[in-house]
């Protein structure tokens, strides 16, 4: 139970009067002090009684959107709580975010201060970071009046506790089998990548591209327009910061303004763009391709925010770098005239890297990016990033871009807190400070 300034005041009055009664030896002060003390205790007893009565009226139910999800993907919880709020009381409910999950959007707390029967509903989205079965742990209800407040846990029964399963989605491993279109769809950002848009049939169009499902739904013939390698779109990648990390808000808003400005300038000329978001080595759901300015700007407004990161690539050694090291070691070892110590050192490097190559697979992030870049021919890649913390994922993209011979540009906002740091090119790409 917590006390408020009002109860502190009453307690102070009680103590002052009692102490004064003791010092001045005055029964009037004693009785006045005692009456204030009794009043405070009475109010406290009444508060506890009302809390007890309110608790008996509480009924909570939770509904989880998907019972089975993939690690790193968002899920939603809807909580409905019905209770009787006594007059003069305020009730706040805080739903506990499931363990090992972070809040993505929405509010997980709600308050009611209107007396009478109330039905409160709250819903929020969260992202699980670990796999396994997670049981919802309920929430905490806080009942308060102007004198006291008390918090009580509300837990679902063990048998009826809402739960959901999280499928593991490891950092390493393949994301597709070669030549399997269905697997390609699972990558996320490249979902439906081959169809650019649907439009109404015009005389002369190839009838093989008619989409019969949409045509049947709309009543007129609709044509699938495929994106071809000759599109020459600019690929804009936004590296969203981690919600768990302190970020320079000003720098981030500058980054978003610069991105919006660039997108507007491109779309104003009716040039198509391809916009996607990543957050470190985590692929985001955001993927847009087209030339609809309003839609694209709405996406930027809604989705370009810090997001929780499931995976991080701290000091990640890329396979290509390891391969290069092995190659260099082999080259040096083939030369004659090396000292025994150098030979031992090079052999050691060669062995260690070989073992690492066997153990460590390519990241799913690299696979996904590689797939996107292989299947499309982008005119250029522009990456918007705060360039804060680990930059391994940016380096991965830079290497892939160099391999595909696509110009790669990093745009990063000027940082007030890192004025001494000069943005360094990771793989020979251009770095522009905005």
């Amino acid at each position, binding site marked *: *139970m917590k006390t*408020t*300034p*009002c109860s502190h*005041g009453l307690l102070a*009055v*009680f103590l002052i*009067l*009692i*102490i004064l*009664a*003791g010092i001045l*030896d*005055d*029964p*009037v*002060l*004693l*009785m*006045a*002090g*005692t*009456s*204030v*003390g*009794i*009043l405070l*205790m*009475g*109010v*406290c*007893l*009444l508060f*506890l*009684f*009302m*809390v*007890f009565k309110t*608790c008996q009226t*509480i*009924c*909570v139910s939770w509904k989880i959107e998907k019972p089975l999800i993939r690690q790193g993907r968002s899920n939603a919880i809807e909580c409905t709580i019905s209770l009787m709020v*006594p*007059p*003069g009381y305020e009730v706040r409910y805080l739903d506990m975010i499931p363990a090992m999950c972070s809040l993505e959007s929405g509010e997980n707390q709600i308050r009611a201060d209107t007396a009478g029967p109330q039905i409160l509903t709250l819903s929020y989205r969260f992202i699980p970071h670990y796999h396994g079965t997670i049981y919802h742990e*309920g929430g905490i209800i806080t009942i308060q*009046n*102007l*004198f006291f407040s*008390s*918090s*009580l*846990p*509300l*837990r*679902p*029964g*063990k048998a*009826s506790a809402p739960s959901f399963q999280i499928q593991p989605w490891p950092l390493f491993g393949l994301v597709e089998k070669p030549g399997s279109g269905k697997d390609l769809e699972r990558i996320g950002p490249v979902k439906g990548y081959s169809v650019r848009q649907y439009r109404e049939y015009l005389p002369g169009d190839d009838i093989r591209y008619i989409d019969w499902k949409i045509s049947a739904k709309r009543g007129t013939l609709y044509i699938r327009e495929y994106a071809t390698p000759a599109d020459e779109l600019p690929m804009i990648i936004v590296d969203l910061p981690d919600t768990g990390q302190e970020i320079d808000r000003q720098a981030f808003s500058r980054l978003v303004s610069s991105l919006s400005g660039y997108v507007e300038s491109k779309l104003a000329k009716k040039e198509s763009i391809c916009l996607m978001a990543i957050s470190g080595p985590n692929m985001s759901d955001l993927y847009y391709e087209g030339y609809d300015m309003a839609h694209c700007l709405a996406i930027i407004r809604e989705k370009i925010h810090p997001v929780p990161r499931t995976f991080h690539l701290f000091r990640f050694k890329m396979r290509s770098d390891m391969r290069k090291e092995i190659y260099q070691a082999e080259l040096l070892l083939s030369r004659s005239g090396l000292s025994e110590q150098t030979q031992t050192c090079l052999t050691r490097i060669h062995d260690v890297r070989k073992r690492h190559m066997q153990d460590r697979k390519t990241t799913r992030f690299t696979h996904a990016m590689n797939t996107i870049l292989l299947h499309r021919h982008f005119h250029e890649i522009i990456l918007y990033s705060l360039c804060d913390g680990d930059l391994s994922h940016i380096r991965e993209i830079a290497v892939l871009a160099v391999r595909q011979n696509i110009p790669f540009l990093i745009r990063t906002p000027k940082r007030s807190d890192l004025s001494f740091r000069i943005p360094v090119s990771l793989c020979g790409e251009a770095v522009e400070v905005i």
Partner: protein
Amino acid sequence: MGTSMGRVFSLLFGIIIIFLVLYAQVLPGYQIYSGIFLCALYVAAGLFRQNSPSHQFTRFCMGESAAIALWFVSSFFGVMIALLVTAEFLNGFTILKNRNGCILFALWGVVMCILAFLSEEIQHTLLPCMAVLVLAGLVALTLLLFEYRMVYQAGRDEL
């Protein structure tokens, strides 16, 4: 309801002040003058109506001091003023809006009357002060234990 109740309390205080002034004419004394002054101050503070808890608490303290000042003159006046002040205070804090709050106030009123009667009998206050403090501590402990049990029970209960 709050405004109409406020008017009733202001009217009652007005009547009491007039009565006290008349009483002071018959039996003059500095304590009754200070009591009247504090009562008038309490009513005046109520005219600047603010619904903030701090304002209401300030008024309660003023009213309590008026009650104490008048208790020195007569315990009847003291109890009456204390009852009125507390009723307005609790009404401002919406405690008197339910039946349990009214019962609490009625019981507290009865205890006040008993205390007023007892105050006439007490000669020295040192031991009663100690007793009050010890009792207050015990009651507070009991209430906290009750609350702890309730929280513990709520944690164990399955919805």
